């Protein structure tokens, strides 16, 4: 498909909006110069999210490109990269032309890029999932994280598998999103603001015990602060 260097798309930032952009590319017979969520001074076209068009693209992707491709597209959508929409569009255009083998063509620039984006999202989800900490506040396990990418939708299920009988709440204060597990039900919601409540004596004791363990387990003659910090980004490891 031809690249149009003159026109950008503007969409509402939703997943269906992005898939509508893909649909529009096929109508326009070009790939736009950029895809933005805010108004721009450059020549642009506003794309109105259309569930029916989005569903047609989703069906086409599932049928022609397979589930590995679907996962890559969903992960890429959650990313914070400026070129993620274009990467998704290029990947789908390529994939609809060549079919299921597209995911194996890792050396193709359009496949390599979305694979890179998708892996970066997966990596951060994994990092956040490993490093976050809970505080037990009024009977609920509470955590606040600041991920770069919008990874909260990817991590809730892990904690259900681990704590089926606890209630938990993880808040992403960058993307203003919260994942809640209460009475056995997992849900995701946009939440403008969240401040954890006060901690009680037992929570205080557990933090103290953890600090004792953490400080003591270090082998002092092996001190290597740089290595430690490299593995402990404060975005997830804050308490």
């Amino acid at each position, binding site marked *: 498909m031809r690249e149009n260097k003159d026109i950008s798309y503007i969409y509402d930032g939703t997943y269906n909006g992005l898939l509508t952009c893909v649909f529009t590319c096929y109508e326009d017979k070009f790939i736009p110069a950029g895809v933005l969520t805010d108004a721009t001074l450059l020549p642009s076209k506003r794309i109105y999210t259309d569930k029916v068009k989005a569903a047609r693209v989703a069906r086409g992707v599932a049928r022609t490109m397979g589930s590995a491709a679907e996962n890559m597209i969903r992960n890429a959508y959650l990313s914070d990269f400026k070129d993620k929409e274009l990467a998704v569009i290029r990947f789908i255009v390529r994939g609809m032309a060549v079919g299921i*083998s597209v995911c*194996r*063509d*890792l*050396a*193709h*620039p359009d496949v*390599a890029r979305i694979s*890179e984006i998708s892996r970066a999202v997966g990596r951060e989800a994994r990092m956040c*999932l*490993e*490093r*976050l*900490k*809970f*505080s*037990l506040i009024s009977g609920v*396990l509470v*955590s606040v994280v600041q991920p770069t990418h919008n990874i909260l939708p990817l991590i809730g299920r*892990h904690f259900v*598998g*681990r*704590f*089926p*009988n*606890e209630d938990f709440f993880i808040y992403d204060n960058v993307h203003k999103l919260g994942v809640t597990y209460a009475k056995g039900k997992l849900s995701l919601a946009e939440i403008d603001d969240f401040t954890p409540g006060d901690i009680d004596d*037992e929570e205080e004791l*557990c933090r*103290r*015990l*953890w600090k*004792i*363990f*953490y*400080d*003591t*387990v*270090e*082998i*002092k*003659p*092996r*001190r*290597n*602060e*740089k*290595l*430690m910090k*490299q*593995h*402990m980004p404060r975005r997830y*490891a804050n308490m």
Partner: protein
Amino acid sequence: MTLEEKLKILTDGAKYDAACTSSGVSRISGKDGMGSASMGGICHAFSGDGRCISLLKILLSNACCYDCAYCVNRVSNDVPRATFTPEEIAYLTINLYKRYYIEGLFLSSGVLGSPDNTTQMMIKALELLRNKYKFYGYIHAKAIPGTSPHLLEVLGRLADRLSSNIELPSSRGLKLLAPDKEKRDVLAPMGYIRDRHLHGGASEGFVRAGQSTQMIIGATPESDFQVISLTQRLYDKYKLKRVFYSAYIPVADNSLLPALDSKPPLLREHRLYQADWLMRFYGFKAEEILDESRPYFNEFLDPKCNWAVNHPEVFPVDVNRASYELLLRVPGIGVKSAKRIVVARKQRKLDLSSLKRLGVVVKRAKYFIDGAAGVKLRAADDPAAVTVELIRGENARQLSLFDDTDVGALPIRG
């Protein structure tokens, strides 16, 4: 004694054990409790020495009746002693686990009177966790050398992983520094676990995540070749999941041991882990990495690069045709990128820029592959010059790895 004081003492005595992995088993929590395990393991934090913290690594007791010269818990050492009750261990594990500080429990212990007595106490603590508190998280327990098989069996059904430490890379070293331990006592639990696994033990819930061991490096004078040969034998003969190395940290003033002010041999430990990786994932045999005539690692070059520059006849490798096994021999190509190459080359011919997209470290690989456009220097023609280039790159990497360690002070061998 408060719980805080006990925790400090019993963490202090446990921290020299290098094993902290929580890998090898996958499950989700039962409906009646809490806890899951993930195949690759999870690191929850990193301590100030840059080591991963996955499990709550504690001793049940540091009141050890043995007198191993290299060990901080030896009976002749003047340190405060403490012993946890099973309830205390359960309280710590459950509460730190719930807050997601830890992936589970690593329970070791000094020898309380006898190996069987110690193991029985460990079993009590683990039974409380598993049966009363319905804990489904990861448990790694120490198989104390000399424990009776029937107790190992019980312990192994409560734990996901067992380890019995070989401690020193030679039986001579063991005899010298650990007079209360016999080599056969160390190997007996290993053999028991292996034999149980050969007969369906894992599917019966016995040590599902397999077993590991560790040895202390630098307390005794074994060569690197001896250490990796032993490692190879342990993998082959005992089917271990992991062999860990622990750079000796002086904890005793003893004429048989390095002086108290000597630095831990961190670079050597790092090279051993690199070699261990090559044996587990890259298809290398110990004799390929080192041999009798060259028993020490090259200090300046990682073992894989070192092997490559010593085998110019293998190169250049054609990435578009070479087998997966041969790709793994190319410096700069790892397990992931080799797998990607094998998939991607069926779709199109690969060149340097596509290799970069596949995650290959082209900076290193370019000397060893066919058709690297614009690269004049080739390992096949001038291995010495390639060595110089690789060392230049390695120095930059290593300085960041050993940032706070004086690399110059490490023992030089080669």
